[in-house]
């Protein structure tokens, strides 16, 4: 979940609803999670210093917008590298 959220936010700041929409769209519906559970995960990542958030107002509605911090970008880069290595190894074995 953490890696998915960090990867989703790498293109720019998003609020919770947009994070879920982006995740569902990018994965073509593969990650169809209980949408509310994304918030505790976002809070956890924020507490770990990987995300930062601010309230903003759009179309008269107040929203909390999340963005990657420098630490979050570094963590994402490391995790993606590790994931690619793992995926390549799996492909070699399974495919």
């Amino acid at each position: 979940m953490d890696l998915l959220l960090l990867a989703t936010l790498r293109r720019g700041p998003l609020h919770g609803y947009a994070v879920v929409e982006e995740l569902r769209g990018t994965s073509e519906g593969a990650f169809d999670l209980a949408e509310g559970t994304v918030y505790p995960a976002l809070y956890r990542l924020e507490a770990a210093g990987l995300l930062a958030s601010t309230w903003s107002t759009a179309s008269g509605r107040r929203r909390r917008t999340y963005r990657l911090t420098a630490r979050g970008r570094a963590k994402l880069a490391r995790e993606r590298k590790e994931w690619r290595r793992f995926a390549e190894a799996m492909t070699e074995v399974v495919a």
Partner: protein
Amino acid sequence: MIERYLDELAAELARRGIRGRRAARLRAEARDHLLELSADHGEEEAIARFGPPQALAVEAARAAHPLMLLRSALVFMAALPLFVLPLYAIPENTLPPAPWAARPDYLTWKLYVSDGAFGIAVLAALVAVAAAWRRRRRTTLVALTVAGSSLAASVAIGAIGAIQWAQAVPGAGTTLALSLGTSAFLGSVAAASLASAQRVHRLARDLPG
């Protein structure tokens, strides 16, 4: 329907120790999300897609409890340096001169034991903060309990010594009463943070899975 869901969510969060700003923030974001979802899919589907409030509260508690425990450990730790006031600054600057050339043994050993217990409390509190930072819940609680017990022993023995000192040195009563009052206040802050840590530990232990 959405408001009822949000009320249920608030109740589930409160049951797991999440209140105040943390709960208000989740409630605000949940409302925003549900309104947006319901505009496209209707309220019933929005609530179904958002997930049951119990599950959300459990996940929120998993994220919040380590931070709550760290806060308790930090409050406990922050109270300790302030003991310099009752243990040193107040008596050193305001106590009248004692009538003896060498301090009597029955006071000296109490001062040493009180200082030693205070030192153990500081070390244990440092361990508690480090453990809470590393999300070691049980270690945090054990270290905080040791710190709390040592602090209580230090304050109790110090209080007996202070009363005996006040009986032996005329005019020392006011200063020592001030020191004892300050110690009692700081001790109650530390005790409250220990109680809060124990509560968070219990709530975290009772989470499913």
